[in-house]
Structure formats: structure tokens, C-alpha cells
């Protein structure tokens, strides 16, 4: 199976440097739909779904390979090597910000810039470190996912399944962007919210932009500052946006900040 099919890789734009947009926990590459139009003219935009999300090949998913973020980082490296487009700008949202950090640490030669949107190297508070959540709160989240998938994903599944051959129909199906197999969603939530990548930050050796939202309960400002302090060659830009998804709530500001960083 090719990595292109496995990760449902899409390329928009014909020329220019490659810019990879990686989605975070919850939805899929559609998260970037309001941002990518600002890049397709002068970049080759690479979109993909993490294995287990969106229209990735679910048969490629395994609890072992993806029990840590390294499995997804390996996928990113495989995609870049397969595409062979030269040094890429990697834009990672939420958990994919850390996936980008791991990938750039493992193979810095494949990257020219790193953009971390709402990054958090560790979600759970740990001593003096403030991640924003306590361990019991994360456990509550995992239980909560159970109850939602009971009445929601299961009910959604037949509608999606009815059109496997015509993805364009599925495109606009209710909730399909955030549809995930309940088992995989729970596993990914555990992998994501129990990860600790603080020690990887210092090893990032390429120019890095941290995009921080003004009010983000998942990645609070203190966490963004922590990441900025830990990565040697990094800039921190705080967007005047609320929530965890500036790529949806403030796509223009997000795009501008990324372009400014690349062309600086």
C-alpha cells in the first residue's frame, strides 16, 4: 500500500515550495479548508489525514504503531520522502504540532520551516509545569468519548458506509469531517492527551513559528510560551482569536502570520 493512499495525501498547486498542513485531534484535513486558498498560488500545498482519521486507510491502523506520536511522525517522513518535493514547510495544528517536532528532530534535512499552531508538549499538569489539565480531567474526557460514540458515531456509520465508492457524496455528510472509529478515537485521545514531548523541543534545529490563540483552553498561552522558550530558533505570535482552532475561526490571520514567517 502506498503512503499516498494510506494517508489520503492530496496535493494542491503546481509549483513552489511544498507546504504541508497537518490536522489535529478530532477532525481531518478539512480543518485547513479556509487556509489553503491563501497558499495554492505560490506553494505546493500538501494535505493528508493522520492514519485512523478522515479517509485514511483504516486497515493500516494498528494500536501498537500509533500508541505514541512517533508512529505518526514516521508517517510524515514517509510521505515527504515518497513525494520528494524538496525541503518542506510543515504546519501542524494541535497534536500535529508535536508530530512535526518529532519528525523535524528525526530528519531535519526534510524541513525548511516549522509552524506550530496551538502546540502543547504535555496537556497534563506536572509539578511546576502547567499543561492546563489534571489527570482525572483527561480520564473524564476519555469516558466522555465513550458516551458520545455510543449515540453518535455508531448512528453515523451506516450513512458513511453507504457511499464508500463516491467520496464526493460523503464530503458534506453530517459530521463526517470528525467521524472516527470509536475505538481509534479513544486510542488517539489517550495517545494525544497523555503524551509528553517536552524533552524533544530543545532538539528542533530549524526556524520555528508558534501560533498561539489568545484564549485557548486546550493550549493556553502559558504553554505556547513554554514551547517558545524551549525551541532555540523560534518566534511566538499570538493571534487575536479564541478557541483552539484559529485555522477555522481566524483563517486570514493564521495565513498571514504563516506567510510573514516564511517570507521574513
Amino acid at each position, binding site marked *: 500500500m502506498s503512503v499516498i493512499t494510506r494517508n489520503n495525501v492530496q496535493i494542491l498547486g503546481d509549483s513552489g515550495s511544498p507546504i504541508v498542513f497537518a490536522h489535529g485531534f478530532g477532525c481531518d484535513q478539512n480543518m485547513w479548508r479556509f487556509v489553503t486558498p491563501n497558499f495554492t498560488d505560490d506553494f505546493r500545498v500538501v494535505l493528508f489525514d493522520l492514519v485512523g482519521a478522515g479517509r485514511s486507510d483504516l486497515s493500516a491502523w494498528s494500536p501498537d504503531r500509533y500508541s505514541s506520536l512517533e508512529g505518526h511522525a514516521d508517517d510524515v517522513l514517509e510521505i515527504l520522502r515518497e513525494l520528494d518535493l524538496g525541503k518542506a514547510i510543515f504546519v501542524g495544528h494541535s497534536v500535529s504540532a508535536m508530530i512535526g517536532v518529532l519528525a523535524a528532530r528525526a530528519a531535519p534535512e526534510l524541513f525548511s520551516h516549522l509552524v506550530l499552531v496551538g502546540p502543547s508538549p504535555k496537556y497534563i499538569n506536572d509539578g511546576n509545569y502547567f499543561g492546563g489539565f489534571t489527570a482525572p480531567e483527561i480520564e473524564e474526557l476519555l469516558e466522555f468519548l465513550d458516551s458520545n460514540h455510543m*449515540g453518535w458515531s455508531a448512528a453515523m456509520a451506516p450513512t458513511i458506509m453507504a457511499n464508500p465508492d463516491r467520496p464526493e457524496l460523503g464530503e458534506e455528510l453530517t459530521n463526517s469531517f470528525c467521524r472516527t472509529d470509536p475505538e481509534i478515537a479513544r486510542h488517539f485521545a489517550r495517545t494525544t492527551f497523555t503524551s509528553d514531548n517536552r524533552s524533544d523541543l530543545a532538539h528542533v534545529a530549524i526556524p520555528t513559528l508558534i501560533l498561539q490563540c489568545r484564549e485557548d483552553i486546550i493550549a493556553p498561552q502559558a504553554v505556547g510560551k513554554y514551547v517558545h522558550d524551549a525551541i532555540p530558533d523560534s518566534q511566538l505570535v499570538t493571534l487575536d482569536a479564541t478557541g483552539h482552532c484559529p485555522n477555522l475561526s481566524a483563517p486570514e490571520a493564521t495565513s498571514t502570520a504563516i506567510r510573514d514567517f516564511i517570507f521574513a
Partner: protein
Amino acid sequence: MDTNCPSDTDALQIDLDELRDLYEHAPCGYLSLDPGGCIVRVNATFRAWTGYDTGELPGRRFQDLLNVAGKIYYETHFAPLLRLQGSFNEVALDLVAKNGDRIPILVNAAERRDEDGKAISIWITVFNATDRRRYESELLAARSALSAANQELQDLNEELSATNQSLDRTNNELHAFYDTLPVGIFRADPFSGEIVQASRRFFALLGVDSAEDWLSALTSEDRTAIGPQFQEAIRAGKTFSGRLRIDVQDAPQRHVQMKAIPITNSGGLITSVVGVVEDVTEEFRAEAQKRQIDRDAIVRQLTGGFAHNLNGILTVILGNLELLEEELADRPHLQPTLESSFVVTQRAAKLVNHLLLYSGYTLAQFANLEVDPHLQDIARNQANRLAAKYRLTVDLQAAGAVVELGSDMLKEAIEELITNAVAAMPDGGDIHLSTRLTMRDETQAREIVIAVSDQGFGMDNATLKKAREPFFTKREVGMGIGLGLSFVDGLARVASGELRLRSASGKGTTVELHLPAPD
């Protein structure tokens, strides 16, 4: 229309007060948010559920009313979905009421957009889902119980499989143990008398592949005798014990001892028959050998007594003949009769001597005799005596070797052996006389081997076994009385040596006289 409800088209006209009333007290909660998620307006139903006063909610964000998990979910699923597809339905969340109570709700939401697709506001409808959530919790609990039960079942299966493996292992160990036993074991059906199960050694001992075929391993004689005996004993509930003879291709017959005993249950009923088979071939051979040795001893004793008496008689006769010789010196015509009486009586005395020697009476004279020169002389004499069709070849390789034996005895022994060789080759042939020095295997003492070989009839195994017994002869009656080899055998024994015979039918015979020949 089959309904009791009044149908009044005027009721579709709704005034503002009624609309406000519906908004405030509809059986669901209504929230209006600005595009940033801040609450602008909520209805009375929602306020009643959550316990907030009219002015307390506007200005806060909807996700502030959720538990932590709901907040994360709102950020990662709810908000993106609203932005991407403009609405969502039936998302399960937990509201945190003012007093801290959790209120399970189902939420529908829609994003109001302008012509450019920009969000203007968000409308949220909230349904109380306490009962539904309870039901779902029960379903979840049932699902995890099922999953746990499945796990338990799987564990049980694994345990069972492990137990089976352990049983298999025990079984294999037991079989391995059976196979190491020096006996074969079997089980027979108490009603049919058939052997139904047997260990590997049972099959190996009997040389059969299946238990039912065991009788086919026996000699035809035993098959007809033992088979019925065995089945009869088993069916009668008795112990069977018997010796089986088994023909083995290209190898000596084997002997197997078989014993089978009935096993009774506590009620005295015979439930099974078990038995063992044991290879007793070696014991059987040892017994046979012992019988042979006993027999040899008896023959020697009888021969000795008989020869001893005869020797006394012959001594008297010879004495009398000598007396007569003196008395009849003046009667020449009687001399030839007397002479022939002397000759036959002396020949008789010589035969008796041989018999005595075989019997262990040591009448032989002993002297230090150097073998090779002596044999050279004997060979020269014999060569002159033999008919032209016989050729005597000599190969003496024991120079200097000395044995404790009278020269006449050795001469007589060699003459007997050459006579036998001649008799075995009526049409003539080569007779080979040789000596060599060797070490005796068991004592490592030096010995001389004096060998006489021919290319004659040879002897089969049965003949070979009896060859050294006195009076045993294959020659026709009147061609010799069969004392030759028994004499040589006796000579060897009294000289602390041994006679060895090698022969096969049609392949000639080699007789070896092994005698101690110390340095």
C-alpha cells in the same frame, strides 16, 4: 381527517407575546451566541435547568458551562463542525449547573451566515437527556459487561487450552515412559479377547504394526496353540501366561514371555485386561546352553566310567596275552593269532585312552614340547601316507613356542584331524596345517593356535554343535566310530586350552587347537 384536534387556520397567526412565551418556555433550551461563541441570549427553560438568573449568562461562553471533557470536545469537534458544515445535531454533552450538578444534554446547533459565508450568530437548542443518558449508560455498562464476559470466556478458553496442552504433555510423558520400559504393555478387551491397545515396544517386540495382528507374529505352531489359549483365558477372566516363539526374518528365532491379567472394578466386574510382553530370548538361550553343558557333563561322566572299566578289562586281557605269549612260545602256528589279538587289544586300549581323555581323566603324558619342529615331522610322515589326490600344505609361524603336552598325544591329535579332513574330501583336495601365535582375549596370555583346514563338505550348525560329542559321526556306519574330535577336544581341555570349530555346509572346515604357550 380522523382526529379530535381542532383545525383552525387562524391559529397559524401568532402574535409576538405568544412567540416570546414559546421561546421562553419551550420544552427545550435556546441559546444565541455571537460568532466568537459568547452567549447573547438564553431562554427561561435553559435558565431553569441550570439555575442561573436572567443576567448571569450573557457574556459568558457556551463551553464555560460544560465540564472539562465537554470543553475539549467543544474545541476539537463542536466548533470545527459548526464552522465546516454550518450545523450539527445530537451531540451529547454535560452541562454544569450553577449548583455544580451535571445535566446530560443533547445539543443541536446551527451557524447563521451572511452571503459571504461569514458567521453572524450561532443558535443552539438543548434537550434534556437525563433519561436517555441513563439508558445509554446502562447500554454502555451492558456492553462493557459483555466485553468483560467475552474476555472472561477468552481467558477460560486460554486456560482450557493451556490445560489441554498440559494434559497432552503429561500424556506424551506417560507414553515416553511406557516406551522406556523394558517390556511391552497392552490392553485387551475382556469380552472379545482382542488386544485393543499396545505400547510401542509391544509392536517392536512382536514385529507387527497393529495390535489385532499380534498372532501373525508367532510361529505357525504357537499361533494355533497359543492364540486360542490366550483368548480362552481372557474371556474366562483368568490370568494368561505363556512363552511365544517369534520367527524373525534373516535372524534367529526370538522368545517372548507374555502375561495378561484381568482388572476388576470395585463390584468385582472385569473391566479390562492388561498385560506385558518381555523378550526372554537371551534367558532362553542361556537355559539351553546350561542344558547343553549339563548334558556334556553327564556324557563325559558316563563315558569316563565306561572307559575306566573297559581300561581295567583291557589291562587284564593284555596281561593275559603276555602270559600266553610266553606259554605258547614253542607253538609257532599260534603266533599270528596271538599277534592279531595284541594289535586289536592295543587299538582298543588306545580308543579307551581317548575316551578317558575326553572324560577328563588325565592319563596323558606331559612334557615341554616345541610345537613347530614336531609338526614338521608329523607333516612329513603324513604327506608320505596320503593318497596322491591329497596335498598337505604347511605354514608354521610359531617358532620357539612350547606347550605342555606329550609328543604322542599331539601326534595322535593331528593325525585324527587330518583323517577327518581326508574323510570330508573323498575326491581329494588341499589340507592346510598351520601354527601362529596370538593373545588370548580374556587373559592376554600368549597362546599357540594349531589349525587344520580342508575344503570339504563342511558342517551345518546342527552338526557343528554336536561335532565334539563322542560317538557322533556323519560318516557311514563302519567308517569310524566318531571319537576323533571328542579326543582332540578332551586333549585341549586337559591342556588348559580350547578347541574351536569353524565350518559351513559346502565351505570346508577349520579346526583350531588353542593351547597356552607362555613366553
